[in-house]
């Protein structure tokens, strides 16, 4: 019997503000999991700290809500330990692009087969409205009362230059598209990065639902756009100031870390027999004699 959307629901009521973009991200993950016939036991969601980080607690699956900025290394550890597990990492723009940016870039480079979903609201929600690396120049927040004078980080362009094999962008209002992006991200063999514009209705009065609706362009509507073309991807991002939706780039050829790793067990490491045989052990000892 395959699982349904309902199987991924638990009885925990999210403590997000009504209207928060993160609700749709949660629903999209649940739908994608059901569409892919996953079961709650075979899905693990690792989340960071922030409003968005709570997401792992609202989905009926295995999950770990860790520390600020470290969702990715934890998620990579889970996947390495159990290669049969579907692993999703999730968190906010501060989590992934400020305190955890180093991990994001290196997870991209490493290309372990997990899916990373960032709920990008261009602000720090949980700490009540400070600037984020995704905030636009001039954006006024509690920590930038005179407007941010730092430039906003183009994470999609950054991901491309870091060697990403799957880069996509979604929007909380477009649940169907977002669900499909998540499905494709999970199916991608390698690291998939999905940045989701997920409005914070409480602290970000600029980048609102309406603002995104007005400014976002669907890649599917751009004539001749092809996500296998990295140069086209870069040009399109630059031209539209990154405000695009869809799969921006995908490299279907490149092998994932696990596929390339020499000697890596075909069986999940989590189930290995731990005891070494006597002979194996004695041989290791003999090497020091």
């Amino acid at each position, binding site marked *: 019997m395959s699982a349904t959307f309902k199987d991924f629901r*638990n*009885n*925990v009521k999210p403590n997000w503000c009504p209207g928060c973009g993160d609700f749709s991200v949660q629903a999209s993950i649940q739908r994608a999991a059901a569409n892919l016939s996953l079961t*709650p*036991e*075979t899905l*693990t969601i*690792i989340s960071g700290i922030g409003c968005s980080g709570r997401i*792992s*607690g609202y989905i*009926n*699956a*295995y*999950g*770990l*809500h*860790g*520390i600020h*900025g*470290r969702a*990715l*290394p*934890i*998620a*990579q*550890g*889970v*996947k*390495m*330990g*159990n290669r*049969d*597990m579907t692993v999703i990492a999730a968190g906010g723009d501060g989590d992934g692009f400020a305190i955890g940016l*180093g*991990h994001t*870039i*290196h997870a991209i480079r*490493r290309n372990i087969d997990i899916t990373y979903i960032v709920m990008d609201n261009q602000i720090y929600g949980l700490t009540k409205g400070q600037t984020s690396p995704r905030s636009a120049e001039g954006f006024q927040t509690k920590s930038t009362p005179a407007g941010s004078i730092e430039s906003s980080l183009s994470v999609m362009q950054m991901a491309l230059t870091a060697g990403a094999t799957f880069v996509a962008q979604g929007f909380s209002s477009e649940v169907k598209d977002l669900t499909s992006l998540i499905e494709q991200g999970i199916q991608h063999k390698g690291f998939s990065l999905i940045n989701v514009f997920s409005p914070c209705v409480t602290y970000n009065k600029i980048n609102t639902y309406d603002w995104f609706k007005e400014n976002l362009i669907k890649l599917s509507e751009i004539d001749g756009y092809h996500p296998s073309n990295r140069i086209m991807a870069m040009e399109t991002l630059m031209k539209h100031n990154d405000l695009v939706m869809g799969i921006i780039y995908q490299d279907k050829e490149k092998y994932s870390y696990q596929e390339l*790793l*020499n*000697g*890596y*067990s075909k*069986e*999940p*490491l*989590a*189930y*290995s*027999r*731990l*005891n*070494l045989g*006597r002979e194996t*052990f*004695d041989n*290791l*000892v003999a090497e*020091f*004699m």
Partner: protein
Amino acid sequence: MVKRLAWKVGGQQGEGIESTGEIFAKALYRLGYHLYGYRHFSSRIKGGHTNNNIRVSTEKVRSISDEIDILIAFDQETIDVNFDDLRQDGIIIADAKFKPANPNESKAKLYAVPFTKIAADLGTSLMKNMVAVGASSAAMGIPLEYFHPIVEELFGRKGEKIVESNIRAIEQGADYFNREAGGRIEELALAPGDGRQRMYMIGNDAIALGAIAAGVRLMSAYPITPASEIMEYLIEKLPKFGGTVIQTEDEMAAATMAIGANYSGVRAFTASAGPGLSLMTESIGLSGMTETPLVIVDTQRGGPSTGLPTKQEQSDIMAMIYGTHGDIPKVVLAPSTVEEAFYDMVEAFNIADEYQCPVIVLSDLQLSLGKQSVDPFNYDKIDIRRGKLIIDDSLPELEKKGSFKRYEDTIDGVSPRTIPGTRNGLHHVTGVEHNEAGKPSEAASNRKIQMDKRLRKLNSLKFDNPVHTNTKHENPDLLLIGTGSTRGAIEEAMTKLANDGVSVNHAHIRLLHPFPAEEMSPLIEKARQVVVVEHNATGQLESLVKLNVGGRDKMSSILKYDGNPFKPLEVYNQCKGVVYHVSHV
């Protein structure tokens, strides 16, 4: 004939000092001698004085020596830096090439042997270390044939000719010494070894091998001195067992990746030194709060900050015990020999699984990089225990979704643990305070229940022999306390003090946290004076003993934080001061 010798080779880093020591040591431990090697090196790759000090003995040795018997010098600096440590009747064998000079104050005899020339005449001056090995063997009267199989192992792959010329280099070094210096020197002739086969390894080898024996399949780590050898060994070995080492982008990733892997059910760990451990502190708290097993090795080096990265120190003790915010259960083990380092690693993984908490294995540079001979590790002593981990599908159907009590408030505080993939064991884990089912909860009553549950776990911690004791005396004049690699220096100082008629007991602490107060209290109570021997500037171990046991009025410490390991004589001399002072008040 003598029972113990100290042999030292010195020169510029990158000149083959390492391999000279290696070859010499290999022949000796295969003859059944006990060895203790310690390298002095600076944190540059080429250049800078380096030396390798090897103690050879017919009995167990666990410390560097007070004096050197034979010094092999590849440059004048080696003589200038080390002649002070040579004993009366000691010898220097130096390369004639640099026209070695024996300082006026030197008590030792200098022999110049043309290492470089003999080697160059045989084909390449690279073999000068072989000539030096030959000359030292002649002085000590070691038959040269023992070196043949070793040279074969080292150079066999490079072909018969290379093997042949290296053997010739050894022979000609010996010939020269026999001819020009009169051959074997009686005071340097070693009594025969017992012929027993032992392992010869650094502490980091033992730690890495211990991890494999414990069933580790994943190590995530970031390189740092003096921990890197652990990952280097495992990079080679883990793929043979289906596992791997991942070199992460930093230590926060290393620690959290290990947490993720442990959460998934695999045994994983990381290793670093002070700077890395500082970066890992938040992760250690996550492991404590989420009750996810985590083993971390800290190979202490000179701190603070970058400090003395290639030098001995034991100054992370307090940071390892207390260095996380909030209250968590945590275990800190401090092995004192390579043998303990091996078995303690296995035990660290067992404790982490059984008590579902972080375990820190605290090594120090002297233990991690010092090379010791040790009886082969015993397969039958390896025991793997995983506590309340459930990985099969034996759990009953849950009544309600997400109701598995991962954090059940049990009597011993340890709750059942399932891993992703386990049917009917599905639960959520969070570093936020949570209830029995793992759901966030800030309720005051729940907070108390969960905090008490976590901290209660270690009340039932079982650890065999948390303190090594050598307590011959009922009411000793002196109790010496140490931890980690200072054990040998303390033991030798003790023997010297006993010869002077001072009664001394020794307690070497293996389990630093939770502190073995019950074991330590009577020892301290019965001693007239207590001296804590440790490698740091603030007396961290002494503070710990005072905090947990007391004894402030009769306790003092011997501190060394100049980067070099204690010599037995240093401990002895300072103890004499304490005992003398006491017996004269």
